[in-house]
């Protein structure tokens, strides 16, 4: 039916990801499936996914310092967030959409459901998007988000974080995660972070201070590489249709 289908993805390591039910993260109790997931071998619908182009986004969309300006720049610590999207085989994932959203420097989101007392910044929207280049490289300019309180226990604070959404080339690679910042003492106390069982997996979510990319007298830089599922290079039994 098809000329050629790409090979299937390596199975997702469910012991590396957080479990659906993480009791210290209270909301997960009523929103986690109790029955096991049905494990599927990939077919065409899993190894394909939406294709985006530069026509879908605007040049300024990755510049959160300027993409919601109302006459000035946002308040806060100016940062460059950059890195590569690669797969488990360390191959670049080019031309894929990366979207981010975050609180402002005071820890407040521009969202009608966020009622934290820290003020809205009139010059900060808090979301951006970009496409990786041929090497899988991406970057954003933004401000470092603030920590903020949330209702889990009565005195729970989220570490500073930026939400990241990545597509990859197949829908089975679809991923949303959060990045944290090197040195933040709230990381160890956060039940959302600590839903991840392996400390090495937590480390993978912590962006590193990157002095070499910092722009002197302008912006501090953090590097955050994103790894998506890799795919087989050798086909044996149970081939996908068309291979």
């Amino acid at each position, binding site marked *: 039916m098809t000329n050629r*289908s790409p090979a299937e993805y390596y199975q997702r390591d469910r012991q590396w990801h957080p479990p659906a039910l993480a009791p210290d993260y209270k909301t997960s109790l009523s*929103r986690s499936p*109790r029955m096991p997931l049905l494990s599927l071998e990939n077919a065409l619908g899993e*190894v394909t996914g939406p294709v985006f182009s530069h026509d879908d986004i605007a040049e300024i969309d990755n510049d959160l310092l300027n993409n919601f300006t109302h006459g000035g720049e946002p308040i806060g610590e100016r940062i460059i967030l950059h890195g590569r999207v690669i797969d488990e085989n360390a191959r670049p994932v080019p031309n894929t959409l990366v979207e981010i959203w975050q609180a402002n420097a005071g820890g407040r989101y521009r969202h009608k459901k966020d009622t934290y007392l820290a003020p809205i910044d009139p010059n900060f929207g808090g979301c951006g998007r970009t496409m990786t280049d041929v090497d899988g490289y991406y970057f954003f300019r933004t401000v470092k988000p603030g920590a903020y309180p949330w209702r889990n226990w009565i005195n729970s604070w989220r570490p500073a974080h930026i939400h990241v959404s990545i597509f990859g080339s197949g829908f089975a690679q679809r991923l949303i995660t959060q990045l944290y910042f090197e040195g933040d003492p709230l990381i160890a106390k956060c039940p959302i972070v600590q839903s991840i069982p392996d400390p090495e997996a937590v480390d993978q979510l912590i962006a590193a201070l990157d002095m070499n990319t910092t722009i002197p007298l302008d912006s501090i830089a953090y590097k955050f590489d994103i790894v998506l599922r890799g795919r087989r290079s050798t086909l044996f039994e*149970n081939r996908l249709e068309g291979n």
Partner: protein
Amino acid sequence: MVQKLNYLKETPSQTAGPYVHIGLAPGAAGFEIFEQELGWDIAGPNAKGERIRVEGYVYDGTGAPVKDVMLEVWQANVEGVYAHPADGRAVEDGFRGWGRVITNFETGLWGFDTVKPGATPGRNGTTQAPHLNLWIVARGINVGLSTRMYFDDSDNSADPVLGLIEQAHRRDTLIATRQNDDIYRFDIHLQGDAETVFLDI
């Protein structure tokens, strides 16, 4: 000691949180920032086939609608073709097959307009009955949940994925009900007796 394999590990998932809307569907959340919102037009103007609407709720384990969820859909066109170079077949100009939708914040109802897909190629020469691939993220969901929506007016009897579901009655959790001319109802239950079958793809 043995040689190191040197595979990297996939970046671990974290919940999309309560404010996923401003990041991924700001226009739908009432926030003007981007010139183009992505994912509101799944089929485009030239898609062939039957125009349909899909609506439903996502329910939590207590039976309450989840009002801060975001869903994404990935589907083939009426001829069973995915708009991706790996498929190798052509789609109508403007057909993307992908969309995203958030709920009404007051009620939790979500809905999107698209075309009914055709059957798609499965593994080893099998054919999969027409379906939408769905991906669900929200506060409290640590790893995005994958599932599928089939159609109650299609022949699903030979579908290889439905056939894998051990408890036959649970297959119904993946089948949408045609309500009137062009609206299919598909409710998703995160937990409980009617828990939807979720997939590890």
